[in-house]
């Protein structure tokens, strides 16, 4: 139990550092940066309390916001995704989960892709809408959603595959 919590905490800190120190500096096409901190929400064990995930997700977004200097959009988006995660899990895997963690899962790859992609997509949609909050910029919002989602998906899916093989 204690070991689990330490694992979660260290993963939290490492992801925040990776996000702010490395990935915020990589700007693809000059505007897009991947939200790799979503790995925390994706990788959070399915049997753990959702209450704590909501809190940690919010805290994660808030930390990123403070470090990026953006105003609250990351916290709102990550909060939403932590709250909606059980619905997304049911949507992508059905009711019967064969494992407690995505990394040790034997479900079909397509299900896992749906899971990761929908989490990223919902997160990006909320993030971009909250940070622009203006439908005059619809094209910019759409562009950011699409490019960021693809970019984030490539990184997150490859890291999930990588950690899976290591296990």
């Amino acid at each position: 139990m204690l070991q689990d919590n330490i694992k979660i905490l260290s993963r939290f800190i490492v992801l925040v550092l990776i996000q702010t120190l490395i990935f915020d500096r990589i700007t693809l096409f000059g505007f897009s940066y991947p939200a790799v901190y979503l790995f925390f929400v994706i990788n959070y064990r399915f049997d753990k309390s959702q209450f704590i995930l909501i809190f940690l997700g919010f805290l994660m977004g808030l930390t990123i916001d403070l470090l990026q200097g953006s105003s609250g959009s990351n916290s709102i988006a990550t909060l939403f995704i932590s709250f909606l995660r059980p619905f997304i899990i049911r949507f992508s895997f059905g009711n019967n989960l064969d494992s407690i963690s995505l990394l040790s899962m034997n479900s079909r790859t397509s299900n896992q892709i749906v899971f990761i992609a929908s989490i990223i997509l919902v997160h990006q949609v909320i993030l971009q809408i909250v940070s622009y909050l203006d439908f005059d910029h619809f094209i910019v919002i759409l562009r950011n959603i699409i490019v960021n989602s693809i970019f984030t998906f490539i990184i997150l899916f490859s890291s999930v595959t990588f950690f899976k093989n290591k296990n």
Partner: protein
Amino acid sequence: MQWFLTTLIQYKNFLFFIILLGIGIAFTVAGSNFHSTKIQEIGVVVSGELLKPIHYSKSYLYLNETNESLLKENNHLRQELLDYKGVQVSTDLDSLNPNLSKYLVRSAEVLRNSYVNARNLLILDKGANDGIKQDMSVIGPDGIIGIVKQTSSNFSSVISILYQDFKINAKLIHTGAFGSLYWEGKDPSKMTFSDVSIINKITKGDTIVTGGMSAYFPKGIPIGIITDFDTPTSGGYYDIKVELFNNLTDLEHVYIIDNKSRSEFLNIQNQDKDASR
């Protein structure tokens, strides 16, 4: 009680989510001016849409009173127009051409009026689609009311003169002495007129009008009369109590004044600032 606790525990995730969402929105609003303006705009639209039917059904009941007051005002304006025509030498219509006048007046109806808070806001049924912009001045039949704070496409919110920390440039009609007018937050019919030097002579019953020293209100709009004043032992400025002409607790129709040379005025002011730097 048992039921309440059970529901609370059952929906604890959702409740927690809502609480954190509120905190997140608060952070967003506090951190970014743009977001707070947007959120306020949503507030204006929502309350405007909600209040519109209530206002219109209510205003139907007061048609008689409204008609009477409008007639009275019309009468007064006609009188003024006649006086004005009498003064003028040429009879061409240039003076009535809206393109030549400095101000453009639009009428609006008050959807929500407030006067009990420390900072009062009004909501009007005209917005950006009707040409209303931020910082335009709003006057009533008898005097000033406020300044447009924010517009959505169909509604606008107005900072009332009954708004603490809001100072208006005003002057005495007789001596022309300038000062600033503000509300102390108690009585919606009384304001305080300060910063008038004691070298100016004042008496009870003197009229106060807008000074025209800012880009907001045109010069010479009546505000109120002096009811009481103190001559201070030190300091050199009067402490004057003013009774407003306008009854701000009972507003129905207001006029929004567009100062067409406002941008020019602000430009000059900025240049002035740059020069003195």
